[in-house]
């Protein structure tokens, strides 16, 4: 099965009408994955036996109308807990960790009958922009195997782009869904903070983390995001707002006539020419369809990266204190006393980038530096959120590029953390403010043929306008129809 030929609604209908069985579909999916894996390396763990068993069960039980994902193979990022299925966060620290419960998002999907094909690769503890920080291996971009898939949800993005699955769960703390979506020419949605429960997500920056989907089509994304959204008694930051049926509004009548699009001038500063060209032509296209495009200013944009790296690293340093080698996770050998267990287990169990973030966070929170760094950054965070509020007073969506560049070469930036962090300049402000935002394929670079993503940022809990805008763009262009040819020239 190559999922470039179909979508979620079509597969659901085919399964219901027994045009294909869940068992056949799952078998074909694994055949396809195994064919690709040697080159792409998107998965840390394949869940084949359990998936085949589940598929047989679905075939026996039959599928109800509301079981949209029943019998449909999907993938899960490996920082999302799956009961009894190894969940590593791509860290040596959790190399043999077997969760004792499912994340709420996984539980919801299980109840709906989805087939979990496996756990996808990421940067260790979701810290990174390339999957090169995975403790195990680097995932390759299906469009050009010498390039990174982006990060941190790079395994999920590559699995979708390679046609392994229709959708894969990701998490987004500072761009970790949108950036890999952009690099792989697929759709990636970070819902509003609080829209989706974070229960069972391995915590990184708790006031930023959000779960979402990487998919090929906008409609599939809307359908799948609806399925995982809603309040959860286990996550007190999850919102009690009603979850709309976003996909119901995506049809031939959907349009962008009169849509007030804001384009921040700061989102074109320091952006590569090839990316700028694609974004400008995407904006022209939406304007030709009746949208009103205005240039605006988000004056604090350039402070987003430093403020984010202070705050997210501070939260990370606190969240990662739990990895002490005592109750679960890696414990160093030949330790003399309990202090040794802590220090040696953490020193040997964490990779370099994770240590760097822990150090930055600990430093920013430490006595004498708290006011100058943590507190200052938290104030800047409010100013960034206010910039968005001001623009949204008279605009419906904010548009710009997702990444300043297309996917870079493996190895190109790994030794230069500061350059790597600057990749997030267009994505982190959204997490600071807790807004929903999507990356949708906008076109291809004239320089290297790699995909370019258009970022669509919405008001809090207004995922609908984002989906509408993305849907219209997708349906009126051919960008999404192009698929990578693995190992060949694109």
């Amino acid at each position, binding site marked *: 099965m190559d999922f470039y030929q179909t979508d979620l609604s079509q597969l659901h209908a085919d399964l219901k009408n027994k045009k294909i069985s869940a068992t056949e579909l799952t078998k074909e999916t694994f055949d396809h994955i195994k064919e690709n894996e040697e080159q792409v390396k998107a998965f840390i763990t394949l869940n084949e036996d359990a998936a085949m068993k589940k598929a047989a069960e679905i075939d026996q039980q039959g599928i109800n109308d509301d079981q949209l994902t029943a019998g449909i193979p999907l993938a899960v990022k490996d920082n999302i807990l799956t009961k*009894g299925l190894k969940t590593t966060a791509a860290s040596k620290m959790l190399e043999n*960790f*077997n969760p*004792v419960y499912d994340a709420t998002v996984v539980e919801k999907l299980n109840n709906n009958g989805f087939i979990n094909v496996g756990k996808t690769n990421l940067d260790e503890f979701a810290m990174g922009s390339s999957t090169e920080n995975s403790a195990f291996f680097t995932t390759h971009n299906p469009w050009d195997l010498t390039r990174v898939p982006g990060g941190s949800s790079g395994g999920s993005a590559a699995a979708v782009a390679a046609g392994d699955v229709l959708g894969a769960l990701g998490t987004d703390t500072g761009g970790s869904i949108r950036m890999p979506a952009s690099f792989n020419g697929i759709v990636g949605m970070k819902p509003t*903070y*609080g829209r989706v429960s974070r229960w069972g997500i391995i915590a990184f920056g708790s*006031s*930023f983390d959000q779960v979402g989907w990487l998919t090929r089509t906008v409609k599939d994304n809307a359908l799948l995001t609806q399925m995982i959204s809603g309040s959860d*008694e286990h996550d*007190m*930051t*999850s*919102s009690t*707002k009603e979850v709309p049926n976003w996909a119901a509004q995506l049809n031939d009548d959907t349009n962008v006539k009169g849509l007030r699009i804001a384009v921040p001038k700061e989102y074109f500063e320091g952006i590569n020419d090839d990316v700028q060209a694609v974004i400008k032509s995407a904006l022209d296209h939406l304007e030709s369809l009746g949208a009103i495009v205005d240039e605006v200013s988000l004056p*604090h944009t*350039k*402070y987003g990266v430093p403020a984010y*790296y*202070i*705050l997210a690293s501070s939260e990370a*340093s606190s969240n990662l*204190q739990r990895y*002490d*080698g*005592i*109750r*679960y*996770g*890696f*414990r160093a050998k030949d330790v*003399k*006393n309990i202090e*040794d*267990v802590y*220090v040696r287990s*953490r020193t040997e169990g*964490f990779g370099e980038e994770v*240590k*760097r973030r*822990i*150090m*930055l966070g*600990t*430093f920013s929170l*430490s006595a004498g530096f708290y006011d100058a*760094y943590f507190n*200052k*950054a938290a*104030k*800047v*965070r*409010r*100013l960034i*959120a206010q910039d968005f509020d001001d623009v949204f007073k008279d605009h419906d969506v904010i548009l710009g590029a997702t990444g300043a560049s297309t996917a870079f070469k493996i190895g190109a930036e790994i030794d230069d*953390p*500061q350059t790597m*962090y600057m990749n997030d300049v267009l994505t982190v402000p959204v*997490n600071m403010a*807790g807004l929903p935002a999507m990356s949708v394929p906008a076109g291809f670079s004239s320089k290297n043929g790699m995909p370019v993503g258009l970022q669509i940022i919405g008001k*809090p809990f207004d995922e609908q306008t984002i989906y509408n805008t993305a849907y219209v763009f997708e349906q009126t262009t051919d960008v999404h129809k192009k698929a990578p040819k693995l190992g060949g020239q694109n």
Partner: protein
Amino acid sequence: MASKITEQQVEHVAELAKLEFKDEELTKFTTQLGSIIDMFEDLTNVDTDGVEPMTSASDRENVMREDKAVKSSKEETDALLNNAPDTDDGYIKVPAIIDESEDGE
């Protein structure tokens, strides 16, 4: 540009974070952290007088629940203990708090 952080400070922060760096790592980390902290210094250009710090983007205020203990099944306890590096008879085993061979360091 002179780094804002010294090797001594990095060592101190590492101690707080329960991490350890070998000499050459310490030098590398000090340089890298220094240049990132230089980038943090950009924030001093922002006027934040009278701005309230923002630490959450949640739309919810306080959420209360009943404080009630829930008993776990033996299966759950076993599954938890299976993740522990070292166990003995239902307990998690750790080395002695004070190492008897310790030399006072």
